[in-house]
């Protein structure tokens, strides 16, 4: 019971929206039935897009790797059930844009047949190997950021690891998936935390849970006790966004993570409880991340938490909860940070912690945006101590440099500012807009710098090639001249052996440039001639077997080109003698 004595800290700002958690928390986690079709997007986590390892027609087993991680910062994707791959194609994604992303579409065969699983004892494995296993099992941060977990499991080399923070706060309204997970599978979660602890070797392990989830706190404390782990399970005051990584670290450890630093530099690392659970399943049971617990709540008859396969289409999933007739949309995530799902065809992914059915009564249409009155309510609510009203002003004016001066990139888009704004300004939308504009600009800048470098290198290479060619020609003609002179000298030598060598040298020096020039011209003329012959020979090749219409088209094009070519050809060839030669060589 040391949890109660533990001194807690506070973070500034935050709000207390209505939690609405009870509606979905009274029933145990249910197993969702197999859907008719699974759409598994390959890119589900931060980092490189996994490479597809299957093609249409392949038969896959449950847990089979279908997307191999692309580099270290990337995570694998697996088949959620056994069945046949229908296609590997672009499919609408669970993303606010509703754009397509490369997905593997699987038709389940109903047998739900597992690939042979190999339980491992991670204590016998090298830490490096454990991280690899986690990457290949597709373990990513299930709190919503989907950052590959293995990449967070290397302790900083310079700073000793002080605290490992396990995030069970679940501060967003409506969502109860972590709550139920901790209530029902606390021991597995604690075992997963044990894996993280052994990899990072922190001095303390703190499990933070908001105090509106007493059952989860009790279950976790019980599990910690029965497994004999020295973890501290701490109930933190319920205040949104207590579940933000930086906020929870602040509350539990009193450490404030500076903008430009990672928490590891302060000796702190943070994981979600569901991540710990999947890590344990991956190692101790050999089960990759192919399902997750999703809260289905809001305007539905039967709100509940479901263990659902990754890739289940939204349309099939919502039927489990029987949405009421006035449902007008589905939010993925919570009401504070979530976004509207673009389509019922979009699949559930690793980042999907909650689906909320919306209705006009549940989420009334937003009141019209009024002018900012600079009341400062947003600055009071901001958990990152930013000045949203200033960032808004400049984001609205598209003065992005100024928004960066006001540290827009420290914004975690938690939505507190929009929540408290008396003028109903969608502040977070402005910040997202400004951020993505700044990113696009930076990408453009990088691209143009790369283009410039390539252009300059190309120019350099052209110069060098030209110089080399000139040198080679000069050398060749000099050699030829020397040969000639030598022949002349021998001829002369027969007449006047005494002064022959001297005279040959001086005359050779004068004659060489003239000869070199002539030789170069001759070589170029020959090359052009050869190129022309070759081009003429090459041309008819792809005109075989053409239709009459195509032939006609070609004739027309030829006719159009002929006068143009006459104009440009001589100039081009005079300016760049190298080009003709290059063609011949190639």
């Amino acid at each position, binding site marked *: 019971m040391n949890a109660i004595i533990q001194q807690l800290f506070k973070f500034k700002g935050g709000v207390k929206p209505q939690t609405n958690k009870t509606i979905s928390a009274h029933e145990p986690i249910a197993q969702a039935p197999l859907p008719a079709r699974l759409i598994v997007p390959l890119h589900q986590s931060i980092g490189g897009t996994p490479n597809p390892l299957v093609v249409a027609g392949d038969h896959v087993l449950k847990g089979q790797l279908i997307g191999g991680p692309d580099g270290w910062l990337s995570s694998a994707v697996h088949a959620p059930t056994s069945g046949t791959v229908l296609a590997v194609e672009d499919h609408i994604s669970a993303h606010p844009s509703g754009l397509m992303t490369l997905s593997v579409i699987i038709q389940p065969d109903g047998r739900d047949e597992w690939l042979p699983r190999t339980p491992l004892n991670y204590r016998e494995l090298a830490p490096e190997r454990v991280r690899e296993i986690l990457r290949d099992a597709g373990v990513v941060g299930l709190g919503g950021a989907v950052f590959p977990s293995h990449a967070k499991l290397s302790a900083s080399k310079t700073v000793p690891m002080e605290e490992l923070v396990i995030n069970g706060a679940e501060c967003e309204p409506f969502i109860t998936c972590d709550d139920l997970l901790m209530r029902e599978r606390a021991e597995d979660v604690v075992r997963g935390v044990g894996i993280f602890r052994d990899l990072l070797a922190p001095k303390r392990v703190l499990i933070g849970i908001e105090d509106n989830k007493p059952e989860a706190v009790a279950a976790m404390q019980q599990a910690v006790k029965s497994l004999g782990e020295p973890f501290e399970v701490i109930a933190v005051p319920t205040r949104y966004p207590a579940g933000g990584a930086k906020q929870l670290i602040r509350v539990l450890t009193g450490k404030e993570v500076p903008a430009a630093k990672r928490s590891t530099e302060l000796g702190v690392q943070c994981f979600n409880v569901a991540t710990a659970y999947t890590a344990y399943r991956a190692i101790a049971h050999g089960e990759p991340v192919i399902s997750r617990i999703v809260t289905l709540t809001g305007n539905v008859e039967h709100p509940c938490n479901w263990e659902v396969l990754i890739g289940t289409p939204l349309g099939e999933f919502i039927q489990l909860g029987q949405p009421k007739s006035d449902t007008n949309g589905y939010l993925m995530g919570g009401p504070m940070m979530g976004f509207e799902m673009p389509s019922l065809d979009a699949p559930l992914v690793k980042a999907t912690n909650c689906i909320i059915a919306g209705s006009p009564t549940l989420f009334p249409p937003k009141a019209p945006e009024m*002018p900012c009155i600079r009341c400062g309510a947003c600055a009071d609510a901001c958990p990152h101590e930013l000045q949203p009203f200033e960032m808004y*002003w*400049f984001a*609205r*004016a598209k*003065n992005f440099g*100024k928004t960066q001066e006001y540290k827009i990139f420290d914004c975690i888009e938690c939505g507190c500012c929009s929540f408290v704004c008396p003028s109903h300004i969608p502040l977070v939308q402005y910040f997202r807009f400004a951020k993505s504009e700044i990113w696009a600009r930076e990408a453009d800048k990088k691209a143009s710098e790369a283009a410039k470098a390539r252009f300059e290198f190309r120019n350099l290479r052209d110069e060098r090639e030209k110089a080399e060619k000139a040198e080679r020609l000069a050398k060749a003609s000099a050699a030829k001249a020397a040969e000639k002179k030598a022949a002349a000298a021998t001829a002369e030598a027969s007449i006047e052996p005494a002064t022959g060598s001297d005279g040959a040298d001086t005359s050779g020096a004068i004659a060489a440039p003239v000869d070199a020039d002539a030789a170069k011209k001759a070589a170029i003329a020959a090359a052009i001639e050869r190129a022309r012959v070759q081009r003429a020979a090459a041309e008819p090749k792809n005109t075989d077997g053409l239709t009459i219409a195509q032939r006609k088209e070609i004739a027309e094009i030829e006719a159009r080109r002929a006068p143009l070519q006459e104009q440009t050809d001589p100039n081009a060839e005079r300016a760049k003698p190298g080009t003709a030669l290059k063609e011949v060589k190639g």
Partner: protein
Amino acid sequence: MTHYLFIIIGAVLVNNVVLVKILGLCPFMGVSKKLETAFGMGAATTFVLTVATGASYVIDHYLLVPFGLEYLRTLSFIVTIAAIVQLTEMVIQKTSPMLHQVLGIYLPLITTNCAVLGVPLLNISNKYNFIESLLFGAGSAVGFSLVLVLFAGIRERIEGADVPVYFKGTAIAMVTAGLMSLAFMGFSGLDKYQ
């Protein structure tokens, strides 16, 4: 001592070159779109104006007055200022490329800044001595920089405001300048307290 203080306060606030004397309006309108550039322009003008007042005092006192050539003041001052600006620019460009990057394009603009010519002429009509002239010059320059920076700050914010289309740009800037000028009238009499 208070006399000198009053000269400075008078130059910075009460008789501000831009808002009260209405001098140097072209850079005030032209270079006040961004805060950084306003800082650069302010710094450059402060330097040139201080040097120019000193140089004009010397020219007037030791060259024009002894030979009775007071009527050539304007002409000789302009030539001197232009030369000083050119010289300053070249020296800065060579010695401190960083500073030149900051002030770079504003330096030549100062040549045409009427405040730089106006302040030396006011010095003479006020019959200031050398020290007083320098203080008045520096004070005016600081006053110029102050309102330029203030004005740039306001204009940066106005960029994001819902200004009616017909008022956008220079029009709203003029209105703002007028309001600032009114505000600066509040300082009047501050330098008369004895």
